[in-house]
């Protein structure tokens, strides 16, 4: 049984090691075969585990694999916690990863063109890419399967490492190696908080294992700690806020969101896998996993909710003005992560994880479809140079439509079930800031629909705007590219309706998620839930539906019907337009304040602290003092007898003087 669990993360690791170290020997075919095989094994085994848990009601497994170390009675372990939350994550991760692996065969087939001719790094780049994404799959699985904070942190940092390697995969591009450095450091800011959170857990719970910590949660919530003299904070609140800082980094919540749009410098398959479907949702997963802690802290929940609401609204707005097809989807991802975070704040952890799942499918689909467009357009990503692609890329077109409808929450599609629930839950929530959050998520519905269909119309409809050469070569990419699109389109349509009853209003999560009796917004909704079909019918009359439809209509009217309006609006609201195009100047601010500031501080401390003060004044200064003193005393040794006699007389006089005046 445990060997089965162990095989799930290890299979992709084996594939990764083989493809990474022996890529040159096994060649391209060998590399993608071995990694796809590894990921396929973990997907199939995940399905087996899912089956056991769904239909055979297998109990949650909490097992230790090995002792990393034991210090002073604190156990640092590697182990698995397999409950229904984990099983869902495992299945989603391995499925999306498998699809992305297959897709990559097509997407990276002509990767040599991305490298300078004489670059040795470009030689086996294809194999290396497969090695990295398989390694990512391993890390992500270890993260979700962990039963303790240390392994969680291991997985947390490991996915960050692979993300870093993959964003900067095309190492020759200055923009890519800037983006990956930025991503890593911003994530480290989050991890810094996360690490302190773990330190607090160890101090107050004396253990790193989830089970032990959760068992002590109530006890900890009665303790306070003082960070500033005179101010006492609830221990659980401090822990939750610190852990959430980690989630803000990984799940790109304001103010640590700046790395995610830049991460689009990486190849599209990883934008789908890492920066949309899986890694960025690790923060959401983590908070859901920690529900027994978060439930005890109203203030942390409020912070979570408001952060999510701001991200959902503000990042969606930026998505409207982007012209790069991948960046539109990236901002959409930020906004959707905001939705999930809002759900967490409303104590609707299952709704957050539910949206995480549906989002993984339709957002991976949208990214891969965008990748398909990018291949067809010969690596052109500017939507202003696209248009009318419907005719040339029918499969991409229809799957994109499905993904877009799911994203805007059109009733019946997966995204509808998860997103509508979140909106309703926030409406019923009692967490501080829920009124504000409700406004944000509701307005974001319109914005989502608007930017999604702006993209859709600009890319697939209207007049073709590309050059003649590109146009002549437009055709649907090979099957390895479109098959994953179809495979992802299926759950994008159906998974929501099929599973909503069990996952949200049934008892799917069981004891994996704990909700305090004071936070029953979701349970309240459940009382009015009469099956997916009825839920869908109600969806047609809610405010969210009209807002979404209005968004689609606006996009159609502005970009299809009367394209000249777009320019007029842009001029009329130039200030807002600039603000959005500049992403609220946050990047500039950070680059100036943290980038420039820390370099300046470093230079200043070095020049004035080390070079001038310690070395200049103290070290070399005392050396000079010694030299000066020697010089002076040397002058005293003149060798003339009368000099010495004179000094003696002065000395005697002084001695007498001392004796006289005592």
């Amino acid at each position, binding site marked *: 049984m445990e060997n089965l669990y162990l095989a799930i993360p290890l299979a992709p690791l084996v594939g990764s090691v083989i493809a990474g170290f022996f890529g040159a020997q096994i060649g391209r075919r060998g590399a993608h075969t071995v990694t796809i095989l590894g990921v396929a094994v973990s997907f199939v085994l995940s399905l087996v585990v899912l089956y056991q848990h769904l239909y055979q009601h297998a109990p949650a497994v909490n097992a230790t694999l*090995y*002792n*990393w*170390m*034991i*210090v*002073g*009675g*604190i156990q640092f372990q590697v182990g698995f916690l397999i409950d229904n939350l984990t099983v869902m994550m495992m299945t989603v991760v391995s499925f999306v990863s498998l699809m992305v692996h297959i897709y990559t065969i097509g997407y990276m087939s002509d990767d040599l063109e991305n*490298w*300078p001719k004489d*670059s*040795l*790094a*470009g*030689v086996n780049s294809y194999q290396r890419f497969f090695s990295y994404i398989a390694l990512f799959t391993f890390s992500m699985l270890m993260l979700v399967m962990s039963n303790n904070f240390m392994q969680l*942190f*291991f997985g947390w*940092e*490991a996915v960050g*490492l692979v993300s*870093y*390697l993959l964003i*900067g995969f095309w*190492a*020759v*591009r*200055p923009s890519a*190696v*800037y983006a990956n*450095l930025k991503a*890593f*450091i911003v994530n*480290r*800011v989050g*991890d*810094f908080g996360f*690490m*302190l959170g773990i*330190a*607090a857990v*160890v*101090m*107050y719970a*004396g253990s790193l294992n989830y089970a032990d910590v959760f068992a002590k949660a109530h006890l900890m919530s009665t*303790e306070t*700690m003082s*960070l500033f003299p005179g101010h006492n904070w609830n221990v659980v609140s401090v822990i939750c806020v610190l852990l959430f800082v980690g989630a803000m980094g990984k799940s790109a919540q304001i103010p640590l969101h700046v790395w995610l749009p830049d991460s689009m410098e990486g190849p599209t398959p990883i934008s789908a896998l890492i920066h949309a479907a899986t890694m960025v949702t690790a923060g959401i997963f983590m908070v859901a996993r920690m529900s027994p802690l978060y439930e005890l802290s109203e203030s942390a929940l409020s912070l979570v909710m408001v952060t999510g609401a701001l991200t959902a609204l503000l990042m969606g707005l930026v998505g409207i003005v982007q012209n790069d097809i991948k960046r539109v989807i990236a901002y959409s991802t930020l906004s959707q992560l905001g939705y999930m975070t809002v759900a967490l704040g409303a104590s609707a952890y299952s709704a957050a994880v539910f949206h995480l799942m549906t989002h993984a499918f339709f957002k991976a689909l949208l990214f891969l479809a965008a990748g398909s467009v990018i291949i067809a357009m010969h690596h052109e990503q500017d939507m202003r140079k696209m248009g009318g692609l419907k005719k040339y890329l029918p499969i991409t077109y229809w799957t994109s439509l499905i993904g877009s409808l799911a994203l805007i929450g059109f009733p019946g599609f997966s995204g509808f079930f998860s997103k509508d629930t979140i909106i309703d839950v926030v409406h019923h929530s009692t967490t501080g800031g829920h009124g504000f959050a409700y406004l944000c998520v509701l307005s974001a519905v319109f914005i989502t629909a608007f930017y999604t269909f702006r993209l859709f119309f600009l890319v697939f409809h209207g007049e073709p705007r590309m050059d003649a050469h590109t146009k002549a070569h437009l055709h649907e990419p090979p099957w390895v590219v479109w098959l994953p699109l179809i495979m992802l389109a299926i759950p994008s349509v159906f998974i929501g309706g099929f599973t909503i009853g069990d996952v949200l209003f049934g008892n799917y999560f069981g004891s994996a998620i704990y909700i305090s009796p004071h936070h029953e917004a979701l349970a309240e909704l459940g009382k009015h839930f009469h099956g997916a079909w009825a839920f869908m019918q109600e969806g047609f009359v809610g405010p969210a539906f009209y807002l979404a439809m209005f968004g689609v209509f606006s996009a159609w009217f502005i970009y299809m019907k009367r394209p000249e309006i777009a320019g007029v609006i842009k001029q009329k609201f130039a200030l807002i337009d600039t603000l959005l195009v500049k992403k609220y100047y946050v990047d500039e601010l950070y680059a100036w304040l943290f980038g420039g500031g*820390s*370099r300046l501080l*470093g230079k200043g*401390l*070095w020049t004035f*602290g*080390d070079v001038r003060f*310690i*070395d200049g004044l*103290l*070290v070399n200064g005392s*050396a000079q003092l010694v030299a000066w003193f020697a010089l002076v005393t040397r002058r005293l040794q003149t060798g003339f007898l009368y000099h010495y006699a004179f000094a003696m007389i002065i000395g005697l006089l002084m001695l007498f003087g001392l004796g006289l005046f005592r």
Partner: protein
Amino acid sequence: MLADLPLLSLTIWFPILGGIAILLAGDKGDAGGVRRLALAIAVVTFVISLGLYVDFDTSTSAMQFEEMAAWIPAFKINYHLGVDGFSMPLIILTTFITILVVLAGWDVIKKKPSQYLAAFLIMEGTMIGVFASLDAMLFYVFWEAMLIPMYIIIGVWGGPRRVYATIKFFIYTFFGSVFMLVALIYLYYKGGSFDILAMHQLPLNLHEQTLIFIAFLMAFAVKVPMWPVHTWLPDAHVEAPTGGSVILASIMLKIGGYGFVRFSMPIAPDAAHLLDWLVILMSLVAIVYIGFVALAQKDMKKLIAYSSIAHMGFVTLGLFVIFQILSNPVGVAGSAATLAVEGAMIQMISHGFIAGALFLMIGVLYDRMHTREIAAYGGVVHTMPIFTGFAMFFAMANAGLPGTSGFVGEFMVILASFHANFWYAFLAGLTMILGAAYTLWMVKRVFFGPVVNDDVRALADINARELLIMILLAIAVLAIGLWPSPIIDVLHATVTNFLHHISMTKLPLH
């Protein structure tokens, strides 16, 4: 079987005698023969030292592999050797790193190779002597003796400003050791012996302890080095040849950390408690201030030298934070104190591997390009992809990525210092951001982007010898990161005893 052999004497004297033999052989013959001989001596020494690990009894905190002989009976000075959990891993680190240093200088050092190799072997023996001595005078002799080969290495095979660097290094360390000598002599008069373990038990009043503690602090703070007595290190590193830098960073700095656990804290526990705020302050300044300073460096060796100072800050933080942990009634204080000390020790060993690897990597680049200026590089990945893979790995280890040894010590010390004070953990934790920033920014500028000039275009990837060095270090870094237990278990008994000892006051009870 093994226990019957004087293992410690063998690990000390075999390389020293081997070094002398190589000196006598001189450079008249074939340089290859000298190199092979030196390598053989280094490998045999390493194998002998492994016997210490194999036969080590992890259940006791008593000294093991003890050897005792009268040396200068008139002053009760003995040739007294022995190891515990603190010193044994450091000895194996020394013998391991020396092999790599011999390999690293293989066909790079053309000037007097026999003297170069002899200096390293003699230095190896004396450094092991420092770790193994249980007699303070013997310790002091080894302590001073190990510096001589280092001066020679920097002074003969060093860079253009080697004379300034050597003198600075000499005066700094000598300044510190003089105070230590005074303290040792005082302890001898007070207790009547130079036996270190007897000094641990010697009752001293607070005034005496404070003066002795400060004297030791001067010696060890310079060695570690701690802010603000650290400025000799970047200069020494920049001027030293690659091998010298590696020994300096990997082992010599550890002697400072070792001094605190062998001398300062057990001999003057009450003064250590009284002045712990000072050492914690110096450590935190080292971590944060030096982290920023590293960001501003233009020379790769200087950057890594500053990074070393910041990382060694975790050692002194971990050691001195224990008093405040133990006095905090909340949480699991005993466990946290153990975590802190063991974290400090792991940090020393891990830093030995990582800093060694980073200096060796800079050496690999320097051998090819004859510059360490970051600005002279760019796009090295296109010509040296295998090397870049290793560079990436060690850079991540330096940034404390979980799964590498660099994570273990920092993680333990941060977790532990949270028990003492939230803000200690906060400031120490900043290294997660700063360490990543200065290390990866350097990696970005050196390795990534397009090829910047023809020199970089002409670079050849690492050869088999360099690959071997990298693989050995990578295995060590990865092994400790994935499974630190084997080293941690060696420490347990010693650390428990250490904590027990220093929490007992030497002052008369009122």
